[in-house]
């Protein structure tokens, strides 16, 4: 039995590696290893007050910091039954779109486009397509600016609190954002035409299961009251463990998720497969130009799916700002939060897929147990399964080509290995002292 090891993956957040197991000339298995040390973030939360969980979890990652903070806040509100005023809900949606724009701009323009154009990195893309790099930088900046204006900081937001937001942005700040969004929307056709020229490589084709949050509302959802699979099943959020049935694997320090014993995919492509009919406006148009009618056969479509969502987030945040500018935005926070013993679940579609935060609190509102399931942890099993199919079709005698293909497949998932928080605990639940 032979082995081909591909060390650290280039252009992937954190450090991950791939091992191809070969028997004779046949690929038997591909493992995605996670080299990043065990993530003991959940244990760090035990004993902390409910008011601290958002700020602590926002520090896990610089890309999804708003998503972690918001998801943690949702869980606290669920546990203590805290209402949220309508204006705060709109502002939080705006924050979600800000993060989506920022993260998708980073992955699409800096990490995925170099693959499409056959370049080693964005540094090489800068020479050939400086206008695309500039568009990416400027979109990423807008995404961070939205987070700064709504969340109080460009990364690691401080303006969220259980029950709403600490303070609303000023109309002047919102108008500044609106004008930038309109400029970017004017540029969308140009970028789409550039991307349209590039053919998505056919590295693998398979059937897959997709999972995303969904809602009965007509809007394309990033929050929702149900978890939906591409097979049509729906579950309430409280049953998240039925989806994320986790297993520990020996080659990785992250846990992996299986649904009905099978891997599944979350993220922009999953959201489009499940909720794509709800896309409207320019995003719908871009979707028709950049994605086939059924984009589910290869994860490589996740890159363009991210760009479609980026356009949606631009349009939707411009719409939300217009609503805010036409209404009284002074009430962004409900009354005092009264902690009580119990548990709460938060779920949110962050750029890379569904994020779950689950907490158990004692009577004083201190964390007794914490569970964070990231999109990357959910995707890992599916990445391995796709890598195996891709390796089976690859010319094993050409190592460079195998590396190129496998890296492209893994990168399409936009994995954030540094934040596959989900950790193997060093202690059993019952042994905790906190």
């Amino acid at each position: 039995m032979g082995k081909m090891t591909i060390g650290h993956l280039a252009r992937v957040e954190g450090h991950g590696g791939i091992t191809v197991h070969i028997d004779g000339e046949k690929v038997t298995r591909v493992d995605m290893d996670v080299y990043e040390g065990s993530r003991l973030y959940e244990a760090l939360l035990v004993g902390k007050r409910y008011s601290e969980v958002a700020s602590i979890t926002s520090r896990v990652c610089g890309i999804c910091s708003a998503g972690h903070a918001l998801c943690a806040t949702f869980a606290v509100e669920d546990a203590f039954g805290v209402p949220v005023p309508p204006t705060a809900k709109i502002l939080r949606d705006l924050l979600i779109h800000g993060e989506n724009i920022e993260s998708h701009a980073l992955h699409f323009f800096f990490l995925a486009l170099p693959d499409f154009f056959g370049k080693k990195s964005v540094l090489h893309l800068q020479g050939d397509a400086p206008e695309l790099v500039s568009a990416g930088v400027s979109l990423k900046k807008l995404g961070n600016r939205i987070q700064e204006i709504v969340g109080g900081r460009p990364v690691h937001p401080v303006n969220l609190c259980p029950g709403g937001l600490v303070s609303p942005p000023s109309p002047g700040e919102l108008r500044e954002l609106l004008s930038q969004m309109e400029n970017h929307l004017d540029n969308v056709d140009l970028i789409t035409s550039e991307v349209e020229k590039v053919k998505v490589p056919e590295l693998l084709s398979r059937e897959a299961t997709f999972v995303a949050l969904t809602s009965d509302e007509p809007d394309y959802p990033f929050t929702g009251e149900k978890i939906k699979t591409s097979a049509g099943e729906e579950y309430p959020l409280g049953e998240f463990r039925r989806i994320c049935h986790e297993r520990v694997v020996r080659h990785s320090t992250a846990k992996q998720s299986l649904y009905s014993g099978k891997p599944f995919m979350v993220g922009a492509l999953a959201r489009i497969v499940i909720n794509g009919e709800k896309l409207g406006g320019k995003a719908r148009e871009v979707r028709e130009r950049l994605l086939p009618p059924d984009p589910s056969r290869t994860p490589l479509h996740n890159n363009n799916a991210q760009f479609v969502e980026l356009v949606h987030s631009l349009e939707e945040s411009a719409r939300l700002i217009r609503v805010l500018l036409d209404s009284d935005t002074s009430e962004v926070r409900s009354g005092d939060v009264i902690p009580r013993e119990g548990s709460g679940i938060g779920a949110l579609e962050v750029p890379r897929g569904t994020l779950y935060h689950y907490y158990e609190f004692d009577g004083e509102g201190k964390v007794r147990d914490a569970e964070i399931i990231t999109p990357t942890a959910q995707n890992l099993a599916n990445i391995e399964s796709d890598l195996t199919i891709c390796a089976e079709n690859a010319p094993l005698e050409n190592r460079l080509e195998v590396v190129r293909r496998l890296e492209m497949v893994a990168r399409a998932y936009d994995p954030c290995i540094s934040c596959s928080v989900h950790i193997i605990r060093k202690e059993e639940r019952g042994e905790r002292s906190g």
Partner: protein
Amino acid sequence: MIVIGLGNILLCDEGIGVHVVNALRERELPDGVELVDGGVAGFTLLNMLEGETRAVIVDAVSAPLPPGTVVRLDPKEVGKSKEEKYSLHDFSLRDVLDLMNLRGTTPEMLILGIVPGDIHTYKIGLSPELEEKFEDIVEKVRKEIEKYARQERST
């Protein structure tokens, strides 16, 4: 002039840059210095730096020196990535600097590195050895910023 502290405060001394910048808020600094807790900014650092004329970065640095040592680095001295690849966590600062150079947007910069004692323990707060030297580290960083700001005035 912008002063950005970088690092992950959930990983012990990895967050030293953030802790130092936050402590500087209580110290006297030259006029016009803006302090920023950059956290795990990664690529966002590019957005924070572009448009600035002068910047100071405070971050943990790996060097064969005793923990707590404050090292002055020129941006050119920031380690090259091991391979000509692009991995955000491999060393984002180098990657950000390279892209800014290509875009012609690099501000004049000073990088202050602090040698950590422990960056592997999942802990909010510093290791005992850095905790002990913390006031001294903050003061050294403050003096470096003051010196750097004065250079600006003289040119």
